[in-house]
């Protein structure tokens, strides 16, 4: 049981010290890649809330991820162009305005999608979340003002008080701080009354109903929280890459987030972080050798699904891996 705190401590220490290593070796790319990993980790943790804890197999999580990115992108676009959104609202480049708004709108979208998709379960739920996300994808592809399929390119990252987000070190530590904060929040949520109901509804919905609890409103709140987390990750990614495109909402993105969760370890809070990092590293590494890296990744993933159910974190942390 003592392995788990040790692994978390080591992981956090590595993440904290990484910029120092990057500075020493002058490896700025490493820093940029690591920031991207932290951002995807945040999105993967939020998805695991749904899949791992809630048993809600959403294949449309990229919708909230991409929506968060687009909220940031659209506001920055109007800020750059000095134009008005729908002729009403000005753009903004202030992180403290843009980010909460991105989170809020993603959460709202998650709630609306939830009202529709949570009427169903099982395979229907998977297909409906997928279809709803694709609907947003096609919607954003059709917005020619915002670049259609090409998306929006941005000149700079958002302004954040006391920090310079264009400075890679500042940005990295901000992403790390937000990830740690989000995981801390999730830890509390999972052990709250809400989290208990959610986990119970995954294990045995019928018994939960017999106790007089209707899981639907709880699931809706849970989905909203997960959507908010993904929205935050989205707006961070928009800052990271200075770019937003409908590809962020595409269902392959949802699939990739799902792969990160499974690869790291389902139903844990630290597993998805490990999964996100491993998958991005693996892609990066395979990409150096061959452009056909998907040919390696595909079969590898298949083997993990068929034979290694506990994921990387499960292998590392042993039986005590489950959080909460």
């Amino acid at each position, binding site marked *: 049981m003592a392995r788990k705190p040790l692994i978390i401590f080591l992981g956090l220490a590595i993440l904290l010290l990484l910029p120092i290593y990057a500075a020493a070796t002058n490896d700025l790319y490493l820093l940029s890649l690591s920031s991207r990993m932290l951002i995807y980790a945040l999105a993967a943790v939020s998805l695991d809330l749904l*899949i791992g804890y809630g048993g809600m*197999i959403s*294949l449309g999580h990229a919708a909230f991820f991409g929506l968060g990115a687009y909220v940031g992108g659209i506001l920055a676009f109007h800020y750059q162009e000095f134009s008005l959104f729908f002729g009403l609202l000005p753009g903004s480049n202030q992180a403290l305005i843009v980010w909460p708004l991105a989170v809020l709108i993603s959460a709202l979208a998650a709630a609306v999608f939830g009202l*529709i998709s949570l*009427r*169903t*379960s*099982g*395979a*229907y739920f*998977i*297909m*409906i979340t*997928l*279809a*709803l996300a*694709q*609907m947003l994808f*096609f*919607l954003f*592809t*059709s*917005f*020619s*003002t915002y670049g259609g399929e090409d998306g929006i390119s941005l000149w700079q990252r958002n302004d954040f008080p006391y920090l310079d987000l264009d400075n890679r070190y500042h940005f990295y530590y901000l992403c790390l701080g937000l990830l740690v904060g989000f995981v801390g929040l999730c830890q509390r949520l999972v052990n709250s009354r809400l989290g208990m109901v959610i986990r119970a509804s995954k294990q045995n919905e019928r018994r939960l109903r017999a106790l007089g609890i209707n899981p639907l409103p709880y699931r809706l709140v849970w989905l909203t929280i997960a959507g908010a987390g993904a929205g935050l990750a989205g707006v961070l990614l928009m800052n990271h890459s200075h770019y937003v495109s409908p590809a962020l909402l595409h*269902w*392959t993105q949802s*699939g990739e987030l*799902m*792969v990160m969760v*499974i690869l790291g370890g*389902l139903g844990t809070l630290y597993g998805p972080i490990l999964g996100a990092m491993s998958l991005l590293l693996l892609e990066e590494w395979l990409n150096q050798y061959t452009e*056909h890296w*998907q*040919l390696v*990744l*595909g*079969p*590898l*993933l*298949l083997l993990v*699904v*068929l034979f290694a159910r506990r994921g990387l974190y499960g292998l590392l942390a042993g039986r005590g891996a489950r959080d909460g």
Partner: protein
Amino acid sequence: MLLLLEQILNGLQFGFMLFLLAAGLTLVFGIMHLLNLAHGSLYMIGAYTAATVTAATGHFSLGVLAALLVTALAGMLLEAGVFRRLYQREHLDQVLATFAVIFTVNELTRILWGRAPLYLDIPPALAGTIEIIPGAPYPVYRLLIIAVGALVALGLYVLINHTRLGMLIRAGASNREMVGALGANIKLLYTLVFGLGALLAGLAGALAGPILAIEVGMGENILILTFVVVVIGGIGSVRGALLGALLVGLTDTLGRAFLPGLFALVLPPAPATAAGSSLASITIYLLMVLILVFRPQGLFPVQGQHGA
């Protein structure tokens, strides 16, 4: 009015194309309870095979035949190699494993055929138009797709309701253990059903070849629409798949054709085009949501043990 009739035919053609895919998907789900994201890959394999064989032999019919053979074979191989292990697993595992199959097949396709899209000409014998509605010549090839789709629907109806194999399929859908216990070779049945689904997907791919660009990712684009069809129709129901496919085909085609014009009646031209085309791109999803509000299990819910 002529334009409307023409667009209705286009919608039917698209609908029957979707039906060819949805029938296989829904059969595989109804009987094996497998959620197969890689169904679109078989469609893509069909299109590539048809294009390659047609180019080599000069005969489109040979291309279609080859596509049918190759996809049925590929489907049965995938079933025996991968999917068979997934029948007893959770949906989550099925989603991920079939997602991995998509990755693999797409990359193999890129290696074999390259990144540039292929194009396939409509065979000369079918390239003309015909005036089935007086005053509105309509492409023969698109009529052919409608005819093939209708024939397949009829064939599936006969197969499922009036043959021994169909009886086993229906029995397998309602209780697979019992069918096995009664001495039917359930493994072989599953492989055959999967092969049949793959063959239909391959047929759709081969027929789509001359009217669409053949490229990696074509399978995934149509797969999502197929999911919408299956959700609307009720997962596991072939009847539902037919109705759902025609509904989706008509809604999408008519929406794209007429919504921008309808908006132009109330809005100035530029925003009307923008709003119309935005809305047109999501009409079928709105249709799905609307149907789910009233029928969460789709139009033809299947009474099975899984109750998905």
